[in-house]
């Protein structure tokens, strides 16, 4: 008798549902290689963040004697012009060590740099590290500007249709008609050195503004298509029946449901921004006062004639690793977040 029916009834355990996001994260965790790539990307971001904080600290506490972290002091010369990297001695007779006389002292010093130096004797390694900050800043700001323009415009065009839609579609079709690189260069060229709303557009600012203003077309088109597809769905109808305003429906009901598309687009677009920054810096339209990977590649044009290959190699590898990691992670993210695109 006692084992047939329990005397006290317990409520059935609630089954915890899995959201799209937790599902995606679970799937992503299983992909070891994608997680490694994510870790590499994070490493670049943390590096850029630390350099940024270090720079701010140096600005505020410079007089009190704060010198900054040694590895980020790219301005110092650490050796003579074009000192080769020390591991060159691995396969050549020439030792990587050098003796030189720094400007502020008379004594000769012996030293070595693991990645060599440039024309001014600045360390290639430190410049490469600093380049991460330049690149990441430009890519993050450009992404934000392009999302800030593209997402609301796309959502509004898709939701209201009619005249508004016509104008927005006309605007992005026109922009898409001009080849991207030309448009980008033209924007960067005319914006450089101008002052907009009291903000001087120097160096990196002009670059990311130009990138942001020219690259919102793709995301705008995507979001518009998705909103058109979803605006007749039940949850939108329910929200409207509850008396939600159009803006509330767009920004609190529709956009959260297409957010994964924004994330995927963002992760794949980021690589494009980093590579475009290199090309713009190379054309002399980018950051010129501070080290950037594009600037290093530009300098390498004259250096290679003297067989100075290390600056070029360092910048190439820096761009290569972050692009590779972002490409692989972005693909994995797309597979995990967009179930329709998933290939078995």
């Amino acid at each position, binding site marked *: 008798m006692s084992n047939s029916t329990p005397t006290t009834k317990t409520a059935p355990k609630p089954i915890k549902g899995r959201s799209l996001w937790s599902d995606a994260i679970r799937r992503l965790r299983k992909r070891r290689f994608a997680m490694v790539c994510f870790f590499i990307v994070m490493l670049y971001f943390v590096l850029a963040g630390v350099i940024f904080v270090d720079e701010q600290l140096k600005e505020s506490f410079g007089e009190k004697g704060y010198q900054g972290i040694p590895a980020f002091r790219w301005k110092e010369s650490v050796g003579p012009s074009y000192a080769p990297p020390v591991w060159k001695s691995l396969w050549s007779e020439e030792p990587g060590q050098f003796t030189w006389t720094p400007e502020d002292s008379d004594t000769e010093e012996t030293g070595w740099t693991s990645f060599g130096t440039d024309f001014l004797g600045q360390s290639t390694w430190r410049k490469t590290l600093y380049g991460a900050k330049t690149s990441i800043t430009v890519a993050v700001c450009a992404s934000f500007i392009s999302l800030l323009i593209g997402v609301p415009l796309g959502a509004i065009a898709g939701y209201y249709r009619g005249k508004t839609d016509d104008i927005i579609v006309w605007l992005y079709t026109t922009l898409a008609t001009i080849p991207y690189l*030309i448009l980008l260069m033209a924007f960067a060229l005319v914006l450089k050195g101008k002052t907009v709303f009291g903000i001087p557009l120097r160096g990196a600012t002009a670059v990311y503004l130009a990138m942001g203003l020219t690259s919102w077309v793709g995301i705008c088109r995507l979001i518009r298509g998705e909103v058109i597809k979803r605006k007749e769905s039940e949850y939108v109808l329910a929200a409207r029946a509850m008396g939600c305003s159009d803006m509330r429906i767009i920004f609190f009901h529709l956009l959260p449901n297409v957010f994964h598309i924004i994330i995927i687009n963002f992760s794949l677009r980021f*690589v494009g921004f980093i590579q475009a920054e*290199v090309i713009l810096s190379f054309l002399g339209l980018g950051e010129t006062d501070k080290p950037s990977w594009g600037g290093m590649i530009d300098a390498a044009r004259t250096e290679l004639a003297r067989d100075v*290959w290390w600056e070029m190699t360092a910048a190439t590898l820096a761009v290569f690793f972050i*692009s590779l990691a972002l490409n692989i992670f972005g693909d994995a993210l797309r597979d995990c977040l967009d179930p329709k695109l998933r290939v078995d």
Partner: protein
Amino acid sequence: MTAYIIRRLLYMIPIVVGVLLITFVLFTVIGGDISQQIAGKNADAETVAEIRAEYGFDKPYFKVEMAPVRESFKEDGFKAGMKSFFEGSQFLRHFKNAVTFNFGRAMDRQKISEKILQGVGPSLSLTVPMFIASLIITISLALAVAFLRGTAWDFGTVVLCVILMSVPYLSFIIFGQYIFAYKLDLFPIYYNPTEPMSFSVILPILIGIVASLGPGLRFYRTVMLDEIRSDYVRTAFAKGLTARVVLFKHVLKNAMIPIVTNVVMSLPRLVLGSLLLERFFGIPGLGYLMVESIAGRDFFVLNAMTFMMALLIVIFTLLTDICYAWVDPRVKFE
């Protein structure tokens, strides 16, 4: 069909006007009055004023003063009246110049239309062989990889594509030039006008092919995979057809639509040439002209080239759409 073509032609007008507006705002409104720059630092006020008048910088941006225009219509007849109307504001002048392909002179006082015409030949001699070769290579590789899907070959190719895509384009050029032209001395480093063009463009063509292999192969592999998974392929294999017949007669033919779209849409870009390759190897094409004008802040040349490229792309988009409608009966003429 005729109605569709006419409608598509009419749809071109707002796009072209939009492009003109963008170039106007970029190069004239934001770019600003550069007559002082053209005249040089030591020029007197008179010369500057003359140049300002030649380029129309002394006129308002949009608003036209109608009184002198009306007078000109009355006194000098229709033609002169129209002329003074279009000279009345900077935008109308910009509009008229672009539509009549009269772009005036560059900052070095050479005619812009001549400069552009001179550049088309060298650009095409670089980009056309590069485009055809890379198209053949990527499509045949994509077919092979799609056939071998799921094997180590397929995986290896995908990995190689991602690696090639991640190397910056500039590094391909600079290392290629350094190793093959400077160190091994197999090709000329820089274009020499006394030598034939075909000799100088070999290395840039090779570099261009390698650099475009990654994204191209990835794109065509996806296209082929979409086709190779379809039912008709299974049927064809079940009929006992050989792999060669299935791949070339069935899969390739059905994959033609995305391939042709991609090809036709890249054609206008061939005219532009390759900015960076031309810059590095000194090939005097349109890409080179573009980089030079950026360095010299020559907004007139940039303006003309932007407009011409946009016009080409608009025309090619139109052609693609018409071909689509013509080839594929499923396309509706909405």
